[in-house]
């Protein structure tokens, strides 16, 4: 087990390097002169040249990349010019908020995705299956940002049960119950799509497994139907569901960009959108890199869980 995790961690290194190259390459492709962008239209050519030298932009690209990578590895992501603070501080602060939201959404979507999938499989072609199938279809077709707006209209504006936006109340909030109240709507919205995908997959994985020979063996032993479905079939089906939960983490992190905007959640998605509008490239770079790296790590976790579930999987 430890050996497996270690092997996977080593295999991460080229992936992370690849990510960093792509992010660097995209940013290096930006048209126009960054020094000019920083100094403004009235800068003298001498000043531009000096800043370029200071920023290392007169070096060849591979060398620039290595310098940049060295800085990243020591935690120096540069300085955000729009916020006038180190990128790393801003990114980590915002990322915490995103982790709370995305984590809650991921737990939710796994929970009801798997449950709905089981129900649909057990009651295949029955009413429960049809209802689940329909909800799933709505879930994966609905624009999440629109769903968020509808939920705000219903639960915050009409019913006034839950706050419409933010992470904490401006006055008198700040504790855990306050956070949870703010978390409900965005987390539910964010989990919709991923739950649909997981439910579909769980359903088909369960149906696939229920036809396997070892299920017949369990029945031949005299194991009851509950044991057959929830112990034998579910355990086998989860082997193919778990990696998909890992992939869904990517969709949840992506969806967070919209949901954070809709619900004014102070996470990294909203930070990125703002940074793009203000063309704060270093901030975009840092944010993208941190989120992508966390996604890769999450997929690793999913693989480890799969490995734990299925003794046959060898890497």
């Amino acid at each position, binding site marked *: 087990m430890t050996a497996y995790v270690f092997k996977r961690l080593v295999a991460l290194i080229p*992936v992370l390097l*690849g990510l960093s190259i792509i992010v660097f390459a995209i940013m290096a492709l930006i048209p126009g002169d960054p020094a000019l962008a920083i100094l403004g239209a009235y800068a003298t050519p001498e000043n531009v040249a000096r800043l370029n030298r200071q920023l290392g932009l007169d070096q060849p690209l591979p060398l620039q990349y290595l310098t940049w990578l060295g800085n990243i590895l020591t935690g120096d992501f540069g300085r955000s010019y729009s916020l006038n603070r180190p990128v790393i501080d801003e990114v980590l602060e915002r990322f915490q908020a995103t982790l709370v939201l995305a984590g809650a959404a991921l737990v939710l979507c796994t929970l009801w995705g798997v449950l709905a999938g089981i129900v649909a499989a057990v009651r295949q072609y029955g009413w429960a299956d049809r209802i689940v199938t329909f909800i799933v279809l709505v879930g994966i*077709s*609905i624009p999440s*940002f629109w769903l968020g707006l509808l939920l705000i209209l219903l639960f915050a504006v009409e019913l006034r049960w839950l706050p419409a936006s933010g992470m904490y109340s401006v006055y008198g909030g700040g504790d855990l119950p306050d956070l949870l109240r703010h978390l409900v709507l965005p987390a539910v919205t964010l989990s919709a799509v991923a739950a649909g995908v997981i439910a579909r997959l769980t359903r088909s994985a369960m149906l*696939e497994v229920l036809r396997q020979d070892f299920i017949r*063996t369990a029945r031949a032993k005299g194991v009851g139907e509950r044991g057959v479905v929830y112990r034998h079939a579910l355990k086998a089906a989860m082997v193919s569901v778990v990696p998909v939960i890992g992939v869904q983490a990517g969709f949840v992190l992506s969806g967070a*960009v919209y949901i954070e905007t809709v619900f004014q959640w102070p996470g990294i998605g909203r930070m990125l959108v703002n940074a793009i509008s203000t063309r704060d490239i270093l901030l975009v770079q840092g944010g*993208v890199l941190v989120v992508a790296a966390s996604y890769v790590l999450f997929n690793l976790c999913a693989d480890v869980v799969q490995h734990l579930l299925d*003794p046959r999987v060898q890497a």
Partner: protein
Amino acid sequence: MTSAAGIAPPAEAPPPARSAWRLILRNRLAAAGLVVLASIILLALVTPLLPLHPPNATAPANRLLPPFSDGHLLGTDHLGRDILARLMWGTRLSLAVGISATFIAALIGSVIGILAGYTGGRTDNTMMRGIDMLMAFPYILLALAIVAVLGPGLFNALIAVAIVNIPFFARNIRGATVGIVHREFIDAARLSGKGRLRILAADVLPNVLPVIVITMSTTVGWMILETAGLSFLGLGSQPPQADLGSMLGEGRRLLMNAPHVSYLPGLVIFLIVMSINLLGDGVRDALDPRLRAGALARPAPMTAIDRTDMGTDVAPVDAPLSVDHLTTQFRLGSDTHHAVNEVSLSLGRGECLGVIGESGSGKSVTALSLAALVASPPGVIAGGRVLLHGSDLLSKSARELRKVRGRDVAYIFQDPLSTLHPQFTVGDQLVEAIRAHRHMSRAAAWAEAVRLLDLVRIPNPRGRARAYPHELSGGMRQRVGIAMALANAPEIIVADEPTTALDVTVQAQVLDLMDELRRDRDTAVLFITHDFGVVTQICDRVAVMYAGRIVETGPTRQVLEDPAHPYTRKLIDCVPVLGSGRRRFDAISGLPPAANRLPRGCAFAERCELADAACRAGPIAMHEIAAGRQARCVRPLAGTS
């Protein structure tokens, strides 16, 4: 031979286009999707011809009119612009952008995929590594990074969304290309001296085109959603130009006092994507042969029972198990496969009865039918009784039957690698078998499991109990299977080809073990096999099955030495005899009849040299040819006295 595999219908060729269309239309949801999508596209196409307000004409006096206002059917937005007109023009734009992005991604992705798949080797490796890298990014994030570089704007959003989707196409199309690149027609094209580009365009492309189209249909909905999303964030279309996403984004600020401004564009996006998904699912289902064959249906806890014939009224013979006119069918649509036809047999106390036949003769289905273990759908037990000490197992409920399975009647299956659960240790699986019928603590059951493993002569049973099935050898696994069947000391064991997957020496050991254990415990065994050698070694009596019927039964030695049915004769002749030097038949010429088209008369007539009109005239009854021997033949070879 496992369960239904022998009589499963042959893999079907993809349906002709017309029947696929019919299937889509029969699927009501898919048809609804098609109608909605076609209407939306049609409306988008004719929008410029309709008498609408100009979409960008502001009229501050008419701002935020509610829906159904005079002259503005869906009301106006914060600048007094007509929402209906903006929706129609926005739909046009969103569709155009989503579809263009799909085509761009399909074009570039397919080129990468075909080149990588066709070239193979290093190029393939490098290209696919790059694609994997792109896929390591959470989806939208990459699009955001690209928009950050190119700057906000609808065209840039289109490019970003297209790039993000390229990996899906590249991967799928590479897979399809690799699948055909070594086929004969490609080799032929290469040998004929065709240029590489011509091969790619004329031979490869047409064959991967379906994959491209399917990938497009599954991604176009996403791409419409994503471009709308980028516009919603203000990174796509810029005012005054408006697609559905940016309308929604603008409307969001008016959520509290004029919600209609935002929910209408969202509703249209939802309708478009939903109809695409409905249609896509319908197409996928229509093209999936497994779904049509019912192969994806969930098997019920017990085989469906729909008996038209309850067997004979004759009081059951005094035997632990007697089977009376058992009939099992597989019903696939309007087609019925007759797997087991009126099979009757009985199993005395401590007796071993061999059931022998070719693949597809119905012997495994007979075995599984005894405890209603045939997968259903499509399996149905259509007649007969299975009497355990006179009480009919087939009239029990699933709950009652559960108590019989494993306690009174236990099974040993063919390939323990697929019939043992891969994720539980063998000890756990034994414990489960024990505790399914006996109230026992886990610890006591575990000790019992170890004892059982020892009984079937597994060395170091204490340690092996903690092993997973894949960690044991084939012979060991089969011993575990035997231990599991013995767990509750059943009166009857049904062994479905338990030695077929093993090599000959291991097979002999396992047979010896089974023979010894059944004699020690006086257990009756129904032994399914296709191997006469196995029958000789272990069975007291034998029943020969052909096309779902028993054609001959009798004491093993008598049947072997002096077979009565021509089929039995040929089956025995097929067994090679070492060192006898006698020339034997290699196989029986011809094929058994298809289980969905059984002849009225003798099913073997077509392959039998002795057959005449009488054989084909009608059903042939089983009749006694000697004491304890029966055959289903009008002119049996033996016992004609």
